């Protein structure tokens, strides 16, 4: 026996399942702690995708429970359209089985690996099967499956399949048990928080370790499910073209017009001319060399960018802002959705947001929230094009300090949506450095950076003004005291002066010759709406303007005026009376109002 024969005996095909068993890290199952996050991430992605397709507002329930020792039971339940019983074994029990791989549109999951990899992982660590319950509608019964994957063949093994009495009318529930720890709890909550930020239409309920968390939705708008489009001639490779032409009976021009987006008859004819192929050739009859020529021609002809409206689903500036405001407390939040763009024929768009101040940690690197197709990216931040683009911006020109990454109480959110997000690996942790995408990210952040700078300089200016005003207010009392000493009179009340300098609303009461005068001066920058309570023995029947109402309590009359005073203007009222009593102001914060009784 030759050595080659010897080797040949060992050579055999490898099942995908076997391959992934050995290369768990490629799918994000490198460690038990990470495994739990990946599992939940895959299940939640599927749930959200399914709900989007069914146009329902997602209600996702996540349960994590310790079963025994280091075995955890993970339950993810959604209110999606459900899965027909015949498909359930394949969706959960076969790697690389999915509905979205061949479609060109934005979706969270794509390859059909995620959830089945979790099933595989559970099987490898505990040997336990995965339980799936799904119901497709009120008319249909729910089915409960117990599944495993045959590692050698990558085919599902159905351990049991029973109708099930389920209180949901539609939806899917998956229950996976595997060995792990709760060490990644913080990370998991972070993941859910971020998911909730970019999916403001979803409600996510979590029960974990006897604790429950709720990420409430802030938008009741069902997001339109992105529609699939045809491939773009610039975004196609030879393999795909070969698949598309094989067995195609159409004439070449028809094949091009119907099979690709943005290709019209004229463009198709130009492609044929450039490839020196007759337009009426049957597509399926092209030789390999001709196919290559056609591909070159397709990419050589100028074709408009693929349609992006339908196949992409941006979150939108308003919803990003609301999503962020819901989960973070910040002084400044702005979001920007860039117009869609194209790299290698794949439509994509970039959305970004910047948050500043509030309860963000004042020191250290900025918090970076990375998203691809509404899915948070938690690992390999350093390897991601988003991080690279952020570090490549000169933040100092936006008054933000920087050591590689920007530092300070800063939050940066970047969402890349595409029909084909270019990840660096199958674990979908980092976006590859595609120049077109990096450019869009940079432009979006720079736009926001300029707004942040404006905000910061305005804030600093206000702060400076306030400091100055404070300095003045420290001197005025001393001046008043000295002046009083010179003129040998009691020190004057300086609170109205302070109000003026500190830009407050100053309310004055003064009684002269049997008339009571009330005056409200607004030295602030905004209109002041307030309610004035003047409590004294005066009935104020001749007051002009008359009070909104007067109450009488044993001879004490409370006169109430509801007024709005524009910045820089004065409101007054006068009535005959003897004054005295008390003056109260409601409706404006106490620190921005000064009440002065000049009669005291």
């Amino acid at each position, binding site marked *: 026996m030759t050595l080659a024969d010897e080797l040949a005996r060992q050579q055999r095909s490898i099942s995908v399942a076997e391959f992934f068993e050995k290369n768990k890290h490629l799918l994000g199952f490198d460690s038990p702690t990470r495994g739990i996050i990946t599992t939940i991430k895959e299940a939640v992605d599927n749930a959200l995708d399914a709900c989007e397709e069914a146009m329902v507002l997602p209600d996702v329930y996540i349960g994590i429970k310790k079963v025994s020792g280091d075995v955890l039971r993970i339950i993810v339940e959604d209110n999606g359209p459900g899965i027909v019983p015949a498909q359930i074994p394949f969706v959960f029990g076969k790697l690389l089985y999915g509905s979205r791989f061949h479609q060109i549109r934005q979706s969270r999951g794509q390859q059909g690996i995620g959830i089945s990899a979790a099933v595989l992982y559970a099987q490898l660590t505990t040997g336990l099967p995965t339980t799936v319950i799904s119901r497709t509608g009120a008319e249909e019964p729910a089915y409960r499956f117990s599944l495993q994957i045959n590692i050698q063949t990558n085919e599902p093994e159905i351990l049991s399949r029973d109708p099930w009495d389920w209180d949901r009318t539609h939806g899917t529930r998956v229950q996976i048990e595997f060995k792990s720890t709760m060490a990644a709890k913080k990370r998991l909550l972070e993941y859910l928080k971020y998911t909730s930020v970019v999916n403001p239409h979803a409600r996510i309920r979590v029960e974990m370790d006897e604790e429950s968390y709720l990420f409430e939705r802030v938008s009741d708008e069902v997001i339109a499910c992105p529609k699939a489009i045809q491939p773009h001639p610039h975004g196609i490779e030879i393999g795909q073209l070969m698949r598309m032409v094989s067995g195609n009976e159409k004439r070449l021009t028809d094949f091009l017009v119907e099979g690709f987006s943005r290709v019209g008859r004229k463009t198709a004819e130009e492609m044929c001319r450039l490839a020196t192929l007759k337009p009426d050739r049957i597509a399926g009859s092209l030789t390999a060399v001709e196919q290559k020529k056609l591909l070159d021609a397709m990419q050589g002809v100028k074709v408009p960018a693929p349609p992006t409206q339908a196949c992409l689903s941006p979150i939108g500036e308003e919803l990003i802002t609301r999503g962020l405001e819901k989960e973070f407390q910040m002084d400044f939040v702005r979001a920007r959705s860039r117009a869609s763009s194209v790299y290698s024929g794949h439509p994509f768009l970039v959305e970004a947001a910047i948050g500043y101040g509030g309860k963000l940690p004042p020191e250290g690197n900025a918090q970076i929230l990375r998203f691809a197709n509404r899915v948070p990216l938690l690992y390999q931040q350093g390897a991601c094009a988003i991080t690279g683009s952020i570090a490549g911006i000169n933040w100092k020109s936006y008054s933000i300090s920087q050591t590689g990454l920007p530092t300070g109480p800063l939050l940066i959110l970047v969402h890349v949506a595409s029909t084909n997000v270019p990840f660096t690996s199958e674990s979908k942790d980092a976006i590859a450095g595609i120049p077109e995408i990096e450019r869009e990210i940079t432009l979006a952040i720079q736009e926001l950076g300029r707004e942040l700078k404006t905000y910061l300089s305005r804030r600093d200016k206000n702060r400076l003004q306030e400091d100055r005003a404070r300095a003045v207010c420290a001197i005025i009392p001393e001046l*008043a005291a000295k002046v009083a000493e010179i003129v040998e009179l009691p020190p*004057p009340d300086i609170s109205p002066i302070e109000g003026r300098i500190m830009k407050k609303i100053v309310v004055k009461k003064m009684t002269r010759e049997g008339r009571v005068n009330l005056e409200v001066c607004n030295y602030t920058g905004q209109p002041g709406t307030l309610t004035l309570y003047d409590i004294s023995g005066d009935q104020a029947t001749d007051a002009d303007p008359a009070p909104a109402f007067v109450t009488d309590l044993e001879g004490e009359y409370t006169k109430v005026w509801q007024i709005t005073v524009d910045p820089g203007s004065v409101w007054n009222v006068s009535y005959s009376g003897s004054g005295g009593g008390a003056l109260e102001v409601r409706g404006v914060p106490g620190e921005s109002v000064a009440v002065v009784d000049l009669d005291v």
Partner: protein
Amino acid sequence: MSKGSLDREAKEKLVDIARRWYQQMTEGAIPSISLPSRTKLNIAYDDASEVWKYGDRESVRSAHTAKSALHLLKMAYVIWFLKKQILESRSSTLRELYYISEGWKRAKFSAQDESNFLIEDLEILTDMQREAFHLRPEEDGATVFGPLRLREMTRRGARDIHCRDDVGEAGYQIPNNVENVDLLDHDAKFVIAIETGGMYARLIENGFDEEHQAILVHLKGQPARSTRRMLNRINAQFDLPVLVFTDGDPWSYRIFASVAYGAIKSAHISELLATPRAQFIGVQPSDIRDYNLPSDTLTEKDVAALQSELTDPRFSTDYWKDQIQLQLKMNLKSEQQAFAARGLDFVTREYLPRRLSEMGIL
């Protein structure tokens, strides 16, 4: 005006400033004060008095900003102090006032200039001189030598003094308060005010005062108020021409301008201090050329000063414009004592007589 009523007026006028602030504060207004703006853009020629006075431009200092609030606080402290000083019949110097402010914490002066400036503000606001507030200037008056007889009220009684016969070689020293001096009589044809001590001594030594019946006044650089007041009074009382003899550089022209027209700093009392009819003898830029005087080139600062004088209303005559432009063209300046290059007697024998007859004095 008796001393008592002068004190009362000074005190009342000072307290009035504080009263205004008190009134503003009780009305809820931010205390403020308005003063004529003290820049050369705001001095104007007053035809009636023939001197340069502050114009209509006013700058308002309001306690709106910390800086102005502090300024008002300092002013309040000074008013408070002066009021006390007047009531107690005491006096102090500007320098002492500066040191007294050490105890005023926030309101203390950061430099002598600041307190001097503030006192000038008070003079403007009250329309009185600082002497009325019992404040004495630090600078001692300069000296006078020549055929002039006067009476000074000293602490030891009135003294009659002849400014040549009764004094030493250095002359009669002008007291701080010239109001305590009565001018009696003279035997002079003109007054010559000299910038440097060297030239003043040269004229005395050469007997210029006797030979030409001249009263010599030493200006000692930029003249003190008392020196200017003295010149003003001699000119007014005896109707004697006043001639100013300085170095030939931009700074010396300003000495002449302050004698003749008043200084920007004291434009509020120009009428008392300035001698509008004073004339400039030299050194003129044309003298540097005509007498080929030893000279230095102008520095950058000199040039800037000359340029600024071209826009100064006090130098807006054709004579000064020509002279200054000539100097800028020559790029040279000379000192008074440069005449010594032609011999020690040249200035008294040749230069001054020639200039004086040119000007119609001799």
